[in-house]
């Protein structure tokens, strides 16, 4: 037990997934040959940045990288979470890259996580200074690009990903993503605050195969440092497509100006369709000038941005394609869905997705390797969808502090305890029978309590 045995992996693929799973399953990993043959060997800035986030949210995790950055040793620690953390994500990847793993990690922490993510800019110090003032050092925050064509946008996270978590029994209180500033490539400057509650014990297994019918389509367009007219054009174009199918389409605009608009001009759209059974299917993109460090930088600079009308139409079409494909989630969220299913208690989870995405397949493989959970994958010919079943690995939130359930409290009327879900409300109980409020809490089910002080004489 004294010797640490590492799980050996190769290549830079799915680095964040591997790191995430390694943390959840407390398996140390050793990754070799990270872009060993590439012109720019080693880890990319966003990957390093992600490792930094991991260090921030967890306790005693050990990261070792060799000189060229082609070899990475990671020994996971305990996810602590905590409020008022700040992280600067850099500009090489959008915030979606960091949000996906952070959401899962935050659920299994000791404390509820609240992080502010930012995109690095030249005026970093100013931003940081401001945030420190505002948040008094206590929230995790990220600075970064909020919208990007590569990663799911923050709007999609708000509209689709967070509601998905509720299916797994995660309380909606404390689950939030606030967009402070928007930033698009190349210079970023966005800022979001993500807060995630912890799961008290474990997730809840789901059977989620009813896709339902699309009842409404909503969306948000945004524009930074460009005219509002861009947004209106996009909305108009998108509506033009949906009008054939559904009248209930509302697309909101979110025009940012000044500090909130980040550093670069750009615009984008995020659409999602809600079905009668509570599924959300989303599509999004953002348009801006390319990143500075991308290849063919000069061409990108020169190239005209695609017109907003085309973007609107394109994203609307993508959304319809995704709806056509079926499944309770869209292809972007498949990975997250599988992961959450695998983390459930040892019950059968059953989900329906459209065509398996390459990322989803990778997630399935990694889940098998790290958690030992295999899915039964069955095509459903009549609907052209795939039904996946698995028995969860029964991961429990081990890092949480011990909470007492109502039954555990031996002499209830002599205790003074605090409800864990709302850490602020303190209930002092002189006599149980006088406090009907407390009684109701007990009736409402398996809420947990954090005992602050126990009168020692009664134990």
């Amino acid at each position: 037990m004294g010797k640490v045995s590492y799980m050996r992996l190769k290549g830079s693929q799915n680095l964040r997934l591997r790191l995430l799973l390694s943390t959840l399953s407390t398996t140390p990993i050793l990754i070799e040959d990270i872009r060993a043959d590439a012109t720019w060997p080693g880890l990319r800035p966003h990957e390093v940045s992600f490792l930094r986030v991991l260090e921030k949210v967890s306790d005693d995790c050990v990261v070792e990288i060799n000189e060229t950055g082609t070899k990475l040793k990671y020994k996971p620690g305990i996810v602590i979470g905590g409020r008022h953390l700040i992280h600067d994500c850099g500009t090489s990847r959008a915030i979606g890259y960091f949000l996906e793993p952070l959401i899962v990690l935050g659920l299994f922490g000791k404390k509820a996580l609240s992080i502010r993510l930012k995109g690095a800019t030249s005026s970093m110090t100013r931003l940081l200074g401001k945030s420190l003032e505002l948040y008094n050092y206590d929230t995790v925050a990220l600075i970064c690009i909020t919208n990007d064509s590569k990663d799911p946008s923050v709007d999609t996270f708000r509209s689709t990903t967070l509601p998905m978590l509720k299916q797994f029994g995660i309380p909606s209180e404390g689950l939030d993503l606030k967009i402070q500033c928007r930033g698009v490539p190349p210079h970023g400057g966005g800022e979001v605050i993500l807060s995630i509650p912890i799961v008290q014990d474990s997730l809840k297994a789901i059977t989620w195969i009813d896709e339902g019918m699309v009842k409404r389509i909503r969306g948000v367009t945004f524009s930074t440092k460009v005219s509002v007219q861009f947004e209106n054009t996009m909305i108009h174009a998108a509506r033009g497509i949906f009008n054939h199918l559904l009248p209930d389409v509302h697309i909101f605009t979110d025009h940012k100006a000044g500090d909130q608009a980040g550093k670069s001009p750009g615009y984008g759209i995020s659409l999602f369709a809600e079905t009668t059974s509570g599924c959300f299917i989303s599509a999004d993109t953002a348009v801006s000038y390319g990143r500075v460090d991308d290849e063919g930088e000069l061409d990108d600079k020169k190239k005209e941005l695609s017109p907003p009308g085309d973007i609107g139409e394109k994203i609307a079409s993508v959304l319809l394609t995704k709806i056509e494909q079926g499944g309770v989630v869209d292809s972007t969220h498949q990975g997250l869905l599988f992961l959450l299913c695998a983390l459930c208690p040892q019950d059968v989870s059953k989900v329906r997705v459209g065509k398996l995405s390459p990322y989803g397949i990778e997630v399935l493989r990694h889940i098998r390797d790290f958690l030992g959970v295999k899915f039964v994958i069955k095509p459903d010919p009549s609907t052209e969808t795939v039904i996946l079943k698995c028995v969860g690995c029964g991961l429990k939130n081990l890092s949480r502090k011990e909470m007492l359930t109502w039954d555990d409290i031996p002499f209830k009327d002599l205790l003074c305890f605090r409800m864990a879900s709302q850490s602020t409300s303190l209930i002092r109980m002189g006599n149980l029978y006088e406090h009907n409020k407390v009684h109701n809490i007990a009736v409402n089910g398996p809420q947990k309590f954090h005992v602050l002080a126990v009168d020692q004489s009664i134990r």
Partner: protein
Amino acid sequence: MAKLSEISHQKSKKKNDGSNEQGHKSHRIRKSGASAKKKSKSNPNSNEGLSKEQKKINNPKAFAFTSTVKAKRLQSRATEKEQKRLHVPTIDRTTGEPAPFVVVVQGPPQVGKSLLIKCLIKHYTKHNLPEVRGPITIISGKQRRLQFVECPNDINGMIDCAKFADLALLLIDGSYGFEMETFEFLNILQNHGFPRVMGVLTHLDKFKDVKKLKKTKQRLKHRFWTEIYDGAKLFYLSGLIHGKYTKREVHNLARFISVMKFPPLSWRVSHPYILVDRFEDVTPPEKVHMNSKCDRTVTLYGYLRGCNLKKGTKAHIAGVGDYPLSGITALADPCPLPSAAKKKGLRDKEKLFYAPMSGLGDLLYDKDAVYININDHFVQFSKDDGANEEGVPKGKQRDVGVELVKSLQNTKYSVDEKLEKIDAREVADREVLLEPVEQYQHEIKDEDGELDEDSDTEDDDGLESLDGGKISDRKTSSQTIGDSSDEEALYSSEQRPPTQNNFKEQLDFHEGRVRRKAIFENEMDIDDQKDSGEDDEDGQDDESDSTDNDATENGDDENLSTHSDFSADDEEDNEDEMGNASKWKESLSERTALRHNINLMQLVYGKPASKSSTEMKDTSEEESEDDEFFKPKGEGNKKSKEGVNDNDVDIDDCSKFLSNASIKDWKSEDLIASIRDRFVTGDWSKASLRNQLSEGAPGDNDDGDDAVFGEFEDLETGQKYESHQDDIGDSHKDDDLAAEERRLKKLALRAKFDAQYPSFTTYNPFSLSFLMKMMMAIMTQRLVMVKEMEVDTLIRRKLNWRQVNIAELNELDEVTRIEIEGYRTGTYLRIEVRDVPFQMVENFDPCHPILLGGLALGEENVGYMQVRLKRHRWHKKVLKTRDPIIVSIGWRRYQTVPIYAIEDSNGRHRMLKYTPEHMHCLAMFWGPLAPPHTGVVAVQNLSNNQASFRITATATVLEFNHAARIVKKIKLVGYACKIFKKTAFIEDMFTSDLEIARFEGAAIRTVSGIRGQVKKAVKEEIANKSKKKGGHAKEGIARCTFEDKIKMGDIVFLRAWSQVEIPQFYNPLTTALQPRDKTWQGMKTVAELRREQNLPVPVNKDSLYKKVKEVQSIGYPQVITGSSAFCIKAQRYTFSKRPLLENRRAVVMEPHERKVHALVQHLQLIRNEKIKNGNSRKRRRERHKKWSVQRKSKFQEETERGKEGKVHTRGKTKEKAQKFIILILELSAFAGASGI
């Protein structure tokens, strides 16, 4: 005693007679005689006999609420009780037959544990058990199996037993009373999840006096109740008849056990565990020959309990350590439940029992063989054995020649084996088990020979026969047969039928014992290579037998063996697998289902046996050989897979699926029409059909079928025949589905019922009474539902999960099912563990059950744990920080060094040197992590000879951390070296200027309470003599400011906190690796070391108490002391001894003065006298008055008494107060009059 037994015997006889009658006599109330008279006397008012309800009806007012407070309290109590009843049930994830329930029989030595087990076994199976060793599995009823285990008498064994017991029978010597072991065991049970407990009083025949017996029973019962709960069952075993407990009492006890319900315990339902009932060493014998101390490979057998066991799970063997499970195989149940035919009770044939460690149950099943033990007496020795018998004189060892021959035989055999094994290894990484097992048995045989001679004498003495250690199980088997050979033979013949006809027998001669190895037919073709060598010997036998084999049974067994193959043979080719499958997959529906899975699953997970590009390897050095060996294949694998999927290991990490190459033009009408029904504006019925269809039967294919598979066609080859087979499978499936649906409905109903009435869980679902009860339950549940909607929905949701789980998993075929959910609870598993220290084999003792517990994710990691700990109230001393304790958490036992702490109100964890006397405190220690809310038991002394209570503390895990934040108080003391107005230079507090810099701004205080602050380090010129003056500068002088000027003699304190380091030490208890009777010795406490080394406790002189110096008393003038409230106190002070001036001087008076003085004195005398007289008169008058008042009031009282009680008392107190005031007034008047 004889008399007593006779009576009981008669009683039992009577009862037996009575049992033949149908129905019981109802109780007849006495109509005459003493008791009737007594009854009639007791209720003259007839009200007595009425029930409470009737009384209420008769006199409703009497039962109305008199006080609102009371009413409220009653109401809230009622709700409280109701709430308590409502609880979310722990979801029971077990499917299929439950594993046998473990009944642990525990008690102090010589209390009759083994006898009780023997009697119970006799009761259940009608067989005599010569000796109790290891777990004994029996079938106790149609739906129930039990496994009896005797708890060893040491604390380690007790801790382990507490972890797997479902029911603990606590045996108590009634004639002696409770012993510490019982309470220790109870405490352990309580902290590791409290299973069911039943007390059993034995040795009651030692009481001659019936009254005394009754009283003792009563006393013990009540003591037992206080420890568990009021009404806890305590069973009495009155005495022995022919050295056994009376049949009737054993029968009753068995009845109690049979109706017992076993609630799930939270730790156990989340961890798989196995109580090992068979243990074999399967190390290749030549390895052992070369080095007898090499690491061994062992196999452990037992029923899987707790939760499902997945492959790749790590496990902890209690007393040994953590090991990965290198091979898991599901075996046929050695003690299966009887078939569910409709009949009452158990047939004699079905009363199986299985106790390989006790040497009973002559059939032993292995992965690929069945062993039948045959007694030595029946063995006809082959040629060399004849010599053997001659060479062995009684009670002596074999001579050298025989040894040589034997060893030659051994080696020859193992060479064959070696050859075969090499083959086997290359073909597949399959373990060759058979031969090693046998080999192992050879070895132990040697010692067997010695022991056999005096087995009769040793029979009684359990301890001595343990000397054999590892061989014990073999030995007993031979003894058993010797004792009751005819019985055994009969028994074995009974046991055979369920598994007999699908294996062949093969006779092997091994050192004086014939072992008939049974080989399953199907094994022959899988590994005929292996068997070919042996086939030469008895080939004809095989052939003749093989024809008899039953096809269907064969298929079943194939199933089993193939999943073992699946797991073991990583490198086996897939095509081969499919070839096999075509043989044994009979039903088409199953086959199609399999195809479905494999196609997509293969796509995702690669070929069943191959691993993905992310190869898992261990960095441990020993496996490097294997790695190299397998490398080429692995790489080839990878390449082939990459061809299919992504060809880049450095592919961009992106969850978005970007490659939507062709975006369709969604404006065209055709396309819109195609997804119209996915919107609420479309056809709802079609949309709902879409969901239903897919849910119902996946076989119902529409036109869309081809299109779907078209997507996968280019990737998967074996696609074409799929859809056809689907259709064929359909008809089969429909029937199944209907049946399944019905069954599920029933199950759901049953589950509902179970939830409402958890006590009836074990009822047979088909019995009439069950149905009736179920109806009632549903009706009542309706009522309840209205009331407790929320809780109910919660419960129902949970229960639905169970149904869903079962339904979903039943759809899968066996192989995938095991892959998905792991091995199910209740299966009999064979688990192979490699690299176990040889001591485990050497010191194996069947009397000490082995517990193998699975570890959940992250539990094998090490870190700091924080527990809430309380010293046990019976432990005599408080615990000292850093004194090692042995803790038992989860499955583990280990020694660790705790630091005790307490949480201050500001959240700081302050170190404590000792645990509080009667309070919880925190303890932090280093060790393998356990999830929060796990119970902990701490022990300091493992020895058996300790008289006092061995459990030192109990605790619960709160959380774990990688960093431990415990602080202790530290006081830095300094002295002023120079004082300005309010500033002073403080020296000796810090040692360096750097240290001062750390403490700038820290609060300090003098002893007299003047507060201050540390400012900065002092420049050397000011503080000390500068270097120029010759003195060398002293560092660490701080400039401090105070709120007032301090004195030179003041001592200055700085209170700070320093981090306490928690020792990173833990030492797993390896009690299974040493002789069990030896006490495990770990780290010693400081006190123990001192005692051993004869060292005195170091004394700090400053800490010793000295006589307090007298403080100079301060005198106060009498004026002050006299009037002050502390006048009495002030008297203690002695005033100046010298008399005052007035008293000292001599006064010489003038004659006139003298006269005046005399007159004044006279007058004063008169006056004093007058006052005296007057007072006495006054007092007398008053006394009279008081008396008359009293009389008057008394009269008044008496008249008023009947009216109102309260006023009366109030009046009385008032009067008292008045009296008191009068008294005070009087006194003051008196004082005034006397002129003081």
